[in-house]
């Protein structure tokens, strides 16, 4: 007895698995964006998770449509995102270092001291910057209330 294999259904199922996997990675990346304690950790963890998840979703779409033109566009988007994501991460991270965004207090900065001394960034070791800013803002608000 000869059994017909339903290739369309198999293709759909493979595409489904890819899409669900990619979406799960995206969701985990979004939760991580909310949970992690420090800008640099968020940055280094998140952008690449989003890149991998997006690549998975796009691959699922390429398998589903099964047309060469769509596949070419999908590969173009994947290559483009995977080239530009680390460049953007590097530029934003560098801007943050220049901008004296504080590191997490458990970060080991031993080998980074030299660079920071050269660029006059010692203040960025101050881990209480957020709280200091908040207290000054509070004082401002209080002062404004006093004036009124």
């Amino acid at each position, binding site marked *: 007895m000869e059994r017909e294999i339903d290739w369309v259904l198999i293709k759909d199922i493979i595409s489904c698995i890819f899409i669900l996997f990619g979406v799960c990675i995206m969701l985990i990346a979004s939760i991580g964006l909310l949970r992690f304690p420090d800008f640099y950790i968020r940055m280094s963890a998140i952008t690449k998770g*989003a890149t991998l998840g997006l690549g998975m979703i796009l691959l699922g779409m390429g398998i589903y449509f099964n047309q060469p033109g769509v596949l070419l566009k999908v590969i173009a988007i994947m290559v483009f995102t995977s080239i530009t994501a680390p460049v953007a991460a590097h530029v934003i991270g560098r801007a943050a270092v220049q901008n004296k965004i504080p590191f997490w207090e458990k970060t080991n900065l031993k080998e980074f001291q030299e660079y920071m001394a050269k660029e006059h960034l010692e203040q960025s070791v101050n881990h209480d910057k957020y709280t200091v800013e908040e207290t000054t803002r509070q004082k401002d608000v209080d002062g404004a209330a006093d004036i009124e």
Partner: protein
Amino acid sequence: MSIFQITLIIAMIMLSICLLLTAIRFAIGPTLPDRVTAFDLFVANVIGIIVIYTELTHNEDFIDVAMILSLFGFLGSISFAYYIIRVTK
């Protein structure tokens, strides 16, 4: 309604939750670079939503939108980063 469409709708709902979480970070992010990162993830999520919408409607023209959006997201985050560098000097 086939299994495939149900899967796609579930994926769409999960991506919408992603957008919501990213928007929360965008709102509370203590510094400007945090918001730029959130913007990056925002663009990636929107591209994912467009891709899944393309599959739901069987209309291949939307892929071009995803392509252009990925390009402009990159340009946006780069220009924001240069703005941050410039504004602090």
